[in-house]
């Protein structure tokens, strides 16, 4: 079955948007132009088939793109495992965490129906808590109540109980994603052996490393936050960016340069041009090339699925940027710099 999944994943990846497609999309005027073009591509034809591109809203396009990635994942995991605790259900877990964090962010910003507008209603039957109840939650206690029957309650309770401000929002996010990594490691240990388990775990450790570097960059360089405070918002999973390396970055006066140097040395290996202005893009580029490599050479079905989903997210992110540019009439050359091929 692993071979079949790998082959299927590669076939799906083969239908990705090409550079020529991106070039055409960049020169489309307005969201309707972008949607009209996507309707002509094999990959998005079905997703946009019944959409009226002349009336569609940018938010709806983004919803459709997110839903399309999820439906693709949903279709593929049926070939691997139906067990909801298996590692392959990682995307459901990830989406659950994303919904909780999003709801908390909107509550914190006092946007009454903000989360509702973003809420992916198609996940309503798939998550371990009531999505509608979450959308109606107006305080942190109500959020805790919604997730009371889930493992997230245990993670969030110490952080949210009695807290009414957004001071601990970052910590909540880190705690939830740390829980996710912990869960993933357990599932991997349970289901995979030796090299397969090692390579799957490595993905998470790499992501944790890159996330930590990004957090350091934002908090140190942009907001100049306190070293100890920054450390609290980091994931406690390390691969190449060890606590010593983090200490080293945070101790530097010119953290930017040090961080770029380490990012290059540890991950990008000078293959990707790294500019502090486009740090996020550089990391996405790294992820993209890493997943492409994995998808090309792996014989592990789960790894192929994970890589394909990673690449789909990269493509979705590219399209979001194109749609945003089309909506706000940005120059194609500027938007092109933000795309990852």
């Amino acid at each position, binding site marked *: 079955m692993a071979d079949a999944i790998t082959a299927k994943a590669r076939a799906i990846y083969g239908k990705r948007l090409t550079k020529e497609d991106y070039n055409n999309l960049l020169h489309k005027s307005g969201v309707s132009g972008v949607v009209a073009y996507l309707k002509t591509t094999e990959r998005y034809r079905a997703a946009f088939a019944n959409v*009226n591109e002349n009336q569609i809203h940018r938010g*709806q396009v983004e919803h459709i793109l997110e839903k399309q990635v999820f439906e693709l994942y949903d279709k593929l995991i049926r070939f691997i495992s139906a067990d909801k605790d298996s590692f392959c259900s990682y995307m459901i877990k990830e989406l659950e965490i994303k919904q909780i964090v999003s709801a908390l962010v909107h509550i914190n910003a006092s946007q009454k*129906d903000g989360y509702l507008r973003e809420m992916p*209603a198609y996940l309503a039957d798939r998550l371990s808590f009531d999505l509608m109840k979450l959308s109606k939650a107006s305080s942190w206690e109500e959020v805790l109540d919604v997730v009371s029957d889930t493992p997230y309650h245990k993670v969030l309770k110490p952080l949210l109980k009695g807290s009414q401000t957004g001071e601990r929002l970052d910590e909540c996010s880190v705690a939830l994603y740390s829980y996710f990594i912990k869960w993933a490691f357990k599932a991997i240990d349970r289901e995979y052996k030796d090299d397969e388990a090692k390579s799957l775990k490595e993905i998470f450790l790499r992501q944790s490393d890159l996330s930590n570097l990004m957090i350091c960059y934002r908090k140190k360089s942009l907001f100049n936050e306190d070293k100890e405070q920054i450390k609290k918002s980091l994931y406690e999973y390390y691969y190449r960016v060890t606590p010593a390396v983090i200490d080293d970055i945070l101790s530097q006066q010119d953290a930017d340069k040090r961080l770029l140097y380490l990012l290059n040395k540890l991950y990008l290996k000078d293959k990707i041009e790294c500019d502090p202005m486009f740090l996020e893009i550089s990391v996405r580029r790294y992820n993209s090339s890493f997943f492409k490599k994995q998808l090309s050479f792996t014989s592990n079905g789960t790894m192929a699925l994970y890589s394909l989903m990673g690449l789909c997210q990269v493509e979705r992110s590219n399209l979001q940027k194109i749609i945003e540019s089309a909506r706000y009439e940005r120059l194609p050359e500027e938007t092109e710099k933000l795309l990852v091929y």
Partner: protein
Amino acid sequence: MAIEKMALVHIEGTLKRVNKALIKCCESNCFHIITSSKGGDGGKGFRALKSKSPFAPIMNRAMALADGLGIEIKKADYDDIDMNVTIDFDNYYKDIESRYNNLFEQKLKIEEALKDHSTSLMQVEKMAGLDTDFRDIFACKYVKLRFGRLPVDSVLKLDYYDDKNFICYHFKEENGYSQILYVTPAADAVEIDDIFDSLFFERIHLPDYIKGDADEAKTELLKLVKEENENLETVKAKIGALKLEVEDDFLKVTSKLASIDQSYDLRQNVAAVNNKFFMSGYVPKRKLKEFTESVESVGDVRVIEKPVDSEPNSSPPVLLHNCWLFRPFEMFVKMYGLPNYKCFDPTPYVAVTFMLIYGIMFGDLGQGILITVLGIILDKWKHVKLAPVMQRIGITSAVFGTLYGSVFGNEEIIKPFFKIPSVYEALGYSSAPKDIFQVSTVLLIAAIGIGVVLVLISMAMNIVTNIKTPNWLSEAVISPNGIVGMIFYASAAVGAALTLGLGINVFTPVYIICLIVLPLVLMFLKEPIVSFFNKVLRPKAKADTSNIVHAVKTYSDAVAELKSVNESEILLDKLTGLGFVKAQYGSVSLDGYKKISSAVDGDYVFYPFQSDESNVYGVYIAPVKEMPVIERGFAALGFKKMKMPEHIEDIRKEQNLHLSDYMAEAVKKEHKSVGSFIIEGFIELFEGCLSYVTNTMSFLRIGGFILSHAGMMLVVSTLAGSEMSVKYILVQILGNLFVIGMEGFLVGIQVLRLEFYEIFSRFYKGDGKPFCPLVTTFEPND
């Protein structure tokens, strides 16, 4: 063989007759126009005629009208149409337009109404179950109602807004959307509309003429759609009647208009001076008299025949003319490329070999007749281009099928040739072979024999084609497809046949040295032999400084030529020193280069420096006084002036440097080393020898397909069984059809492959240009 003989004609006359002359040329269907050498820069005082057609806008109107009326535009005889000026045509089309436009507007209105009703009907159908009258809904003053569709994902989110002041009705859910109607007080409409907008609601505006509830509205709309469809049919019928009424005249008038309009486009090929026009073109020789009479009937126009190759910028086009038997095979020749006008048409050779090889490979009396019948049907019914070929190859297939004794795979009805005692005894069998598989060795040897003969014929054709060309030595004599190659190939083949077949060993030392080794050595040394011949044996170029044209192809040849000329005659320093000489560097086509001495008059020297596949690059030097005349002469040959390269300028500046010294120096740089000569020579020789073997072996497929056909028919007969039954008949019919469809097609491809790769590659260059006579076309103008 069968390339239509062409005549080059110059047509000249008074300028006011140019359009009429062009129209006559179009009508003749046999005039291939070329850009006159007198046009452009080619002749003193000549200018190319270029003018915008005043008929173009009318032509566009005519085409639009034809489109609207549904008239299929085709050429019609317009002798009886007495319209010549724009106003005549304008009035004619205006009259039809006034009648058509009225109907067209009615049609547009009805189509628009039909579209509206259909859209409304589609929306109303989705609201099945709505029991409120639409008129009441539209009449509401204090509540707002919105029809539209909401993504299914957003429907769930409506629960969140339970406390808001609106009521939402759901009708039908399809394609990820839910058809809804929401009602809200006018006072809250802005807020509610905003909520629905955020949920990606797409509003649909229903027309206010809808009345009754959803079912009644649907019935009413269906009635309206039906009425409009009837109206549309009525208008279409009226347009059809108008078409019938005007069609014949319309086609005649439009044909004439197209001819006149097109004559303006063709003017760009016509040169004019003062009050006269000149144009040139090719006409098939057998139609020349008829053409001349037709064009000269215009009055004040003369048709003058010139030598066919006297036009410097053009070579005659090729029109194949074969008898009915060979004509369908012209398709394959055209597919590969038309022959050069000066070469011969290989169509008869292709036709004979194609029919013969196909027949041998797919020999079956029944199936051959079936292919012929199918070819006749397809030709009459669908005019398929391949059908006449099918008719012919079907017959040869039937003939060879009779020889093989095969009728729809059954080999018992007719006695096969290999079962005739005198034949099988001659083939070395003591008793009659049971089936064709037992004579497979003989078949394969025969296939190679056919290959050898065809390759030798192709080589002979190459020799005949090239023997009169300037490159006869390298192409017709010392080449793998020339006399030397032919001797080697024939000797090797005959020697092998005699030794292996009859046990006569002819490979004696004399035989090997004279007929095998010597040809190989000659082919290996082809380049130095040709070079030596060019230097020593060819007639030397004229040594004076006027009209020197070096008939050379390569840079090295040019140097050799220059060296053979008395150097004192070509000292550039002397020429430049005199101060009355001017030089012009540039390129000229190979054809133009060959015609320099005949086409350019005056005192000049042309030094070719380099050449590529299509052009010769060089410099002409002439006295300043003569330069304008010389320049015109070169321009007429298509000489393209180019900036003088730096090193040529240097020569002119360096007073003591001889041109030949400079060129000899340059040649040294590209001089081949002995090592590279040996390697290149060996590889070319190896490639040539390899091609003899592979080309010959390629013919094995002829024998292979005979056996494959027999094998496939054996499978069919095994599947059918031996007892006559429905199954037997069914399997025989389907099996035979399958074999004809698949193997018949495959054999066709294989034969074509043999023609193109094994035969054509040895002698044929498809570099001819097609004969394209002027014809009236019906295209709107830009």
